[in-house]
């Protein structure tokens, strides 16, 4: 493990990683950090897509008020 890999994981996790993770090789820490970053990105994309899709279900009369809440 290098301090740089640990810092990268800390940044992605936005928290201090558990102490035992220091025992892992740097490649594993980077793997975890990348996975966390990808999971957040996927969630943001899914949310955007679902929001657009859900809007089609909203009755026309309510679209204005709903849009105001969402923006």
């Amino acid at each position, binding site marked *: 493990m290098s301090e740089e890999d640990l810092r990268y994981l800390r940044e992605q*996790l*936005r*928290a201090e*990683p*558990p*102490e*035992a*993770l220091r*025992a*892992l090789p740097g490649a*594993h820490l980077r*793997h*975890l950090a990348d*996975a*966390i970053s*990808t*999971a*957040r990105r*996927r*969630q*943001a994309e*899914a*949310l955007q897509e*679902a*929001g657009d*899709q*859900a809007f*089609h*279900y*909203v*009755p026309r009369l*309510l679209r204005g*008020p*709903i849009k105001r*809440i*969402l923006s």
Partner: protein
Amino acid sequence: MGENIELRAEILKLARLLGFQPEEVGYLSALPGSEVRQLREQVTELLFDSHLGALKRLAAASRLLPVALVAQMGEKAFGPLLSARITGLLDPDKAVDVAARLPDAFLADAAVELDPRRASAVLARMPPERIGAVSAELAARGEYVTMGRFVGHLPDESIRATLDVFGPADTLQVALVLENKERLGDLVELLGPDRLEEMLAAADSAGLGAEARELLEMAGASGPSDLKRQRAGARARARPQS
């Protein structure tokens, strides 16, 4: 004993959060289960708190919409993962009404993604028989790890409804990966001596007898025959004196 079982359960939970197969983070099996759990809880916090503003706005917008429409949007547009993220942000009574309109299979999918700590008000209001039905679906899928996360957040009535649909092997598998071990004692009490006996027999046939008895010890619980004696004593004490 249970350390290996717990570690495997924690790796599975973390892998799911990250969209991996457990083997892809197999290197975590070199770490203590408690540390993997801490990491998993940190990732859960991060993912549930990411985009919280947008999720809260969606929950607020849902107040303007009829329950049937929210259910339809949940199933068709948001899917189980995002529905699980939003559940704890909805008004709990409305969330229960929405759940009433969704199929068991969808609720089971959402349960896999749900953080029960954030949805405990909803879980507490769910009709026990519905919890039982979704639990049966989860057991049929072998989703014991998911059930193990929920038990600590369910009222006794819902646990009872779940135990009614579980076979002894299901109960054993859930007990082994139970997250809130402090509820083990309640679980044993709700199981009762006969089902406890069946569970121990299932554990013996699965080669998990030692683990099951260690769980009983951790719960400070008695074995089936002690439990029977205790219950008979309690019944005798409750009988009106003539």
